[in-house]
């Protein structure tokens, strides 16, 4: 019978996440990649192939930006390609790395994510307006935050969730980020701060939202044989999943991310996880907005529909809670250079499962973690399940 190859993460690297960084995209990608290689104790010549994740070209302002980033990603004269699934890219690119190795084609794979949103000037917001349908949506003067506010409001309405409950996520994540050395917006804030912050698109307020950022992240993947040679502490990618829902988002009920559930089920099945709530020790769901963390906990089957706010209120998702969620500080605290932010989550799970997360370390020797990202028109879910 066909037996799957196991794939391990053996190194990770991250740049600072900031509103503007001086480095070019290539230089950012290089810094993260170099750090990942160094941490794995590998050289570029040990790498067989490279996969890159990066969100819209309209941020960096380079058409075919994957081609521009070849050298920064360490792909000079190597098999190299870029995957792109909107906001889901950052976690998805780890999945792409997985199939490069699991297919048996390569023993090692560099997985790199880069975003330089500050090139889109004065605000990356313009790039977001071009994600919409040019006939149905763009003529209305649409703004990216509109659609998330619509989704958030629907979610709140269906389950009767209050803004106070949602704000707790922002408080927690920005607080967690105080311990993250790369964080852009770490802060000690209160629920009142969130509720009193400027209204952007009701019910979305300033402190419900992650910032725009520049940054890069990278991990090194290796086959079982190689992983065992280079480290005695590999973290295995045991399950990968991804799923896209219909383009026609106004034809769907936005209260629940079915596509995240579909992606999670794919990954859980592969990893042999039957009861995610019990078996997963630490989770990094995508949190560009605070309500998304709750939404995604439900999609990841970490709780029942509508139950995530309650768990949050009870402190279950705190770093020292029963199910630590976004111990890194998430996008709300660390920042959101789209694809790099997603891969940052994979890096965090890697560090957590290795017990190397320092002040961010969740207690109790976590063995299984999940990272998840979300994107496109509220339609993409990508999930990676990792074990130590």
């Amino acid at each position, binding site marked *: 019978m066909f037996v799957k190859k196991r794939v391990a993460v053996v190194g990770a690297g991250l740049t600072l996440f900031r509103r503007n960084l001086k480095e070019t995209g290539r230089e950012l990608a290089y810094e993260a990649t170099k750090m990942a290689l160094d941490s794995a104790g590998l050289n*570029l010549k040990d790498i067989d192939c490279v996969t890159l994740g990066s969100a819209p070209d309209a941020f960096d302002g380079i058409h075919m930006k994957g081609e521009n980033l070849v050298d920064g990603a360490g792909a*000079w004269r190597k098999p190299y390609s870029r995957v792109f699934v909107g906001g889901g890219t950052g976690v998805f690119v780890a999945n792409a790395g997985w199939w490069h190795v699991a297919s048996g084609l390569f023993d090692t794979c560099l997985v790199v994510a880069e975003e330089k949103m500050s*090139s889109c000037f004065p605000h990356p917001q313009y790039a977001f307006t071009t994600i919409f349908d040019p006939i149905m949506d763009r003529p209305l003067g649409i703004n990216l935050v509109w659609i998330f506010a619509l989704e958030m409001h629907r979610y709140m309405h269906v389950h009767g969730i209050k803004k106070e409950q949602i704000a707790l996520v922002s408080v927690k994540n920005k607080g967690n980020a105080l311990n993250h050395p790369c964080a852009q917006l770490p802060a000690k804030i209160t629920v009142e701060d969130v509720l009193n912050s400027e209204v952007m698109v009701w019910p979305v307020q300033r402190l419900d939202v992650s910032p725009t950022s520049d940054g890069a992240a990278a991990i090194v993947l290796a086959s079982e044989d190689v992983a065992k040679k280079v480290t005695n502490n590999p973290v295995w990618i045991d399950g990968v999943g991804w799923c896209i829902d219909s383009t026609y988002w106004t034809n769907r009920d936005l209260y629940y991310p079915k596509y995240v559930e579909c992606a999670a089920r794919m990954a859980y099945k592969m990893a042999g996880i039957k009861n995610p709530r019990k078996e997963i020790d630490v989770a990094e769901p995508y949190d560009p907005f605070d309500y998304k963390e709750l939404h995604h906990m439900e999609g990841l089957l970490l709780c029942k529909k509508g139950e995530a706010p309650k768990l949050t209120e009870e402190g279950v998702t705190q770093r020292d809670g029963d199910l630590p969620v976004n111990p890194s500080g998430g996008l709300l605290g660390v920042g959101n250079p789209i694809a790099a932010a997603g891969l940052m989550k994979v890096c965090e799970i890697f560090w957590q499962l290795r017990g190397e997360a320092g002040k961010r370390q969740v207690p109790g020797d976590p063995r299984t973690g999940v990272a998840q990202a979300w994107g496109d028109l509220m339609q993409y879910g990508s999930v990676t399940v990792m074990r130590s």
Partner: protein
Amino acid sequence: MSLERITDPREIEHWTGHMETDYVYTLGIAGEIFFREIKENAKIMGAKCKKCNLIYVPPRLFCERCFEKLNEWVEVSKRGMVHTYTVAYIDVDGSKLKEPIVWAMIRIDDVHGGFVHKLGEVNSQDVKIGMRVEAVFEDKEKRVGSILDIKYFKPVG
């Protein structure tokens, strides 16, 4: 396949739009040093990779081959050789150029790299691969720290 198709050409609709907005690009860590030297001193800098024994022009933060960080900057020659060239007759919008542009890849002496730039002060028929050329800089007060601070490359004896 669709059960209906458009059969009357007057029924066809198009929707126009664009993806145009403003961008600013930082020059990067290596790029800033490179363009500062061009702007202030009309000097061309390269970055040396000791491991691979290459001098990159334009300079880079890292060696793409061995991935070492490069921090040794060296001044290189303003002269080089035409490695290849072409004569462009059309502009970006497809219209015919009034004056054809001679583009060339110029290998700067003793380095890895050089410039893809325009040639000036030369007839397009006279350009040859292997021809010696030299960078012509804008006047200092006009230089802004961009690749355009080099006006073009011109033939030298």
